[in-house]
């Protein structure tokens, strides 16, 4: 095939004529290799070698001979499975009710169903202890029960469902919202009743969305660190917490790494199934014709049943967050409920450094992450180069790798030259940048796929080079994706804990770590005050960005702000 060789040669020559593009691709590959692949590799190699540097499986046999550790593995999978199922169920309930019935308070339900995304995930756990724990407002305060089994499986699952069901809602809202009501009309017309129409049309069509949602929730739950640290307790070990304790408590890095590898496998499997199998099975019923149909999917009693269920869940979710706010303003939760501002005084006194550090880290990593996400999205959608699929897989991989694994990987990978970063600002910033690019990439890719490639080609023929096309045409066109990446990266950077807890130091600390250590030492009100401050800063950022966007880029229509 002589001519093929010539084409490859031509293509390479073409790439060489554009050194900027070539350099960019190489740099991104290098960065992904160093900051995503290398740390994961280090976790593997640490778990497989002993002190003398020889191949050694003893870390695994040790971990597995320990019944406690084995239990941790089962528990992690069990919680992840249950959270995936119930989280999906609640998400589906909201998505179906909002899209297929004419219940009142739809906007309220929609808001509640996305709200938890902007809150630190482990706040749910904190609040559940305050409501159902030893001094719980509901258990002890109302019913006088002191030993309600809030620690362990059910408490943990409850906390995770509350903070992760929005992920399910957003996906399923997209799925159910795009199933044309005329399909149900057609089913009715062919003699189906409401239940049959749901079971034979709507449900099968949402199966890919359901499967995808459950896999994502499964990954999120496995990776969760804050909730189990607070709620799992010693009788219910889970992997992410055990790996952390193994390293920080027992100074056994190898054992921790081995547990991390056990945590990594199910996550990666779920990720691959989600991305390469379920992700491809999507039904598209967008016809371009206006589909105005009167909502008649459910009958009256069913409508009110759905409404009540949504309302119950919404009230529960709001109670969780309201508890935090209330807790921040009382003297000592459950014992002395007089209102006070002392907690905030304490926060600004003890935590001012953590607050400053958190903001510096978030404001540094967020724009880098968003810009990098857009650049990678641009390369993936618009450029043909060797290794494109590999770049896609690697850059999305960090979504699937639990923070605990990445955190351990970072301390192993960057504690010696040439990457001596331990204890620095850089290690936290880099960690956040590379952990939170996937969302930017995905929204960038989705938006770019809707932009006619001819628009960019037109810019090329008018003399723009790759850099100019990106900055003058592509970026302005995908501004909404850029800002949603910005918001997501900021929220995640502000609320990060699982990887960050390995990377904080005396020099650089985080509010989230403060919240955990405060609640660990029983200072719940102080933990609440920290949380309220954190939430206020996140809301403030989103608010300012929204105002800025209104004046700046109104042409691109409503941007999908704040929905991660």
């Amino acid at each position, binding site marked *: 095939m002589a*001519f*093929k060789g*010539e*084409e490859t040669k*031509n*293509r390479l*020559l*073409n790439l060489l*004529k*554009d050194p900027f593009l070539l350099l960019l691709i190489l740099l991104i590959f290098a960065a992904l290799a160093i900051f995503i692949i290398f740390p994961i590799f280090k976790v593997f190699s640490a778990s497989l070698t002993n002190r003398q540097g020889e191949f050694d499986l003893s870390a695994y046999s040790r971990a597995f001979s320990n019944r406690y550790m084995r239990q941790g593995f089962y528990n992690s999978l069990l919680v992840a499975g249950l959270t995936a199922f119930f989280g999906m169920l609640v998400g589906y309930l909201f998505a179906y009710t909002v899209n297929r019935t004419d219940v009142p308070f739809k906007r309220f339900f929609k808001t509640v169903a996305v709200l938890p995304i902007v809150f630190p995930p482990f706040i749910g756990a904190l609040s559940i202890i305050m409501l159902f724990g030893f001094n719980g407002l509901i258990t002890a305060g109302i019913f006088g029960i002191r030993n309600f089994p809030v620690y362990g499986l059910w408490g943990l699952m409850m906390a995770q469902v509350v903070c992760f069901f929005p992920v399910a809602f957003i996906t399923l809202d997209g799925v159910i919202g795009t199933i044309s009501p005329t399909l149900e009309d057609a089913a009715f017309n062919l003699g189906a009743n409401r239940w049959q129409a749901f079971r034979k049309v709507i449900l099968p069509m949402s199966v890919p969305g359901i499967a995808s949602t459950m896999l994502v929730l499964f990954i999120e739950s496995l990776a969760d660190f804050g909730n189990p640290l607070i709620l799992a307790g010693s009788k219910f070990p889970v992997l992410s917490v055990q790996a952390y304790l193994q390293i920080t408590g027992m100074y056994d890095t190898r054992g921790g790494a081995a547990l991390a590898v056990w945590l990594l496998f199910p996550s990666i499997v779920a990720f691959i199934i989600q991305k390469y199998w379920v992700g491809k099975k999507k039904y598209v019923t967008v016809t371009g014709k206006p589909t105005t149909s009167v909502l008649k999917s459910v009958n009256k009693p069913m409508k009110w049943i759905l409404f009540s269920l949504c309302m119950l869940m919404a009230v529960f979710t709001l109670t969780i967050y309201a508890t935090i706010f209330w807790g921040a303003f009382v003297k000592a939760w459950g014992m002395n409920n007089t209102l006070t501002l002392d907690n905030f005084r304490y926060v600004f006194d003890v935590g001012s450094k953590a607050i400053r550090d958190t903001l510096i880290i978030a404001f540094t990593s967020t724009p880098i992450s968003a810009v990098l996400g857009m650049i990678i999205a641009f390369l993936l959608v618009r450029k043909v180069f060797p290794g494109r699929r590999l770049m896609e897989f690697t850059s999305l991989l960090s979504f699937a790798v639990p923070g605990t694994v990445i955190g351990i990987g970072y301390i192993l990978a960057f504690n010696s030259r040439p990457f001596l970063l331990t204890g620095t600002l850089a290690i936290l910033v880099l960690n956040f940048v590379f952990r939170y690019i996937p969302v930017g990439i995905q929204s960038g890719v989705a938006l770019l796929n809707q932009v*006619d490639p*001819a*628009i960019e*080609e*037109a*810019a*090329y*023929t*008018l*003399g*723009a*080079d790759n850099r*100019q096309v990106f900055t*003058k*045409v592509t970026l*302005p*066109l995908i501004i909404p994706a850029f800002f949603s990446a910005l918001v997501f990266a900021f929220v995640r950077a502000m609320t990060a804990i699982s990887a960050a807890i390995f990377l904080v130091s005396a020099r650089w600390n985080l509010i989230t770590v403060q919240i955990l250590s405060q609640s660990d030492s029983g200072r719940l009100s102080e933990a609440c005050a920290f949380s309220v401050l954190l939430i206020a800063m996140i809301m403030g950022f989103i608010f300012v960005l929204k105002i800025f966007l209104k004046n700046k880029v109104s*042409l*691109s229509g409503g941007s999908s702000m704040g929905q991660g």
Partner: protein
Amino acid sequence: MSLILKNVRKVFTSYGVETVAVDDFDQSIEKGQLVTLLGPSGCGKTTTLRIIAGFEIPTNGRVLLDEKDVTNLPPNRRNISMVFQSYALFPHLTVEENIAFGLKLKRLDRTQMKRKMREMTDLVGLKGLEKRRPDQLSGGQQQRVALARSLVMEPSVLLFDEPLSNLDAKLRESMRLEIRRIQQEVNITSVYVTHDQVEAMSISDIIVVMNEGKVMQIGSPFDIYARPQNSFVADFIGRVNFVEGVVDSVDGDTVTVSVRSTGERIIGKKGSEISTGEEVKVVLRPESLSDRREDRINTLNGKVLKFVFLGSNVEYELELPDGKRINAVTFNPIERKLPVVGKDTELYFSRESAWVIKA
């Protein structure tokens, strides 16, 4: 020569299957010419255009622009502009900013830019719309912006990728005249891709008819229609009847063919290299078949099967004795009688309109 394509070939490989999109395209285009690439979808015309623009890299062959090899130059380093099917206007920029986009990249000074912009908005008729955004323009206006944006760059070659296919029929007709007027006014070398033969006929200096990646014929609109070199071109352009036969004799460019089914003789013009005894097709356009003999030397006998009265003309279908069906058109039916279904009829045609090509 403004633009030269030398033995350009493009092979796409997907899942191990190779598809030849463009096969040995070899053509030179002179300064100021408008060359149309015409063919059914999938014939390789758009790929050829994208190779010229630099969006595709040819598998073999070279692209020369103003005597310079640009085969490996990226699109932005070739002095070529393109008008896209979807217009591809920058939605975040105004009309003015769209047109100025390339000039700004060239860092032109303000006064020069202003002058060029004014000339251009006058030329394409966009005065008063400078501050609008693309979504506030009609399809025709968007098309004008796309044209202005490309022209203002004063490219060596201007490319058109089915620029009119998104417009309605009326607008399409006026826009193609407009494009031709502007193209001739600024005397810019152009390559124009379309699948619409009427469009190609009406604006081109040269038409390149393509099929399955191969060039079928290159010639003026008249040549392509009146002197097709093969049955694909004859069939693709306009309506046509083919009568099969065998060559009796060749005398210069005059060929005598005996019709296979009836043995009747047809005297026609030689359309491709043929010799005595060879199987051939006689290309007969419906409008060249007349019911009046006058000085037409060839005759066809048949029965009228059906006819359609269209006002300015009558189209009818004739069945020859061997069962073969022939289409014919008569113009100005008011001055003659309408055909009668079932009646035996004789049709006459001249030597010039019987174009003989290889079967």
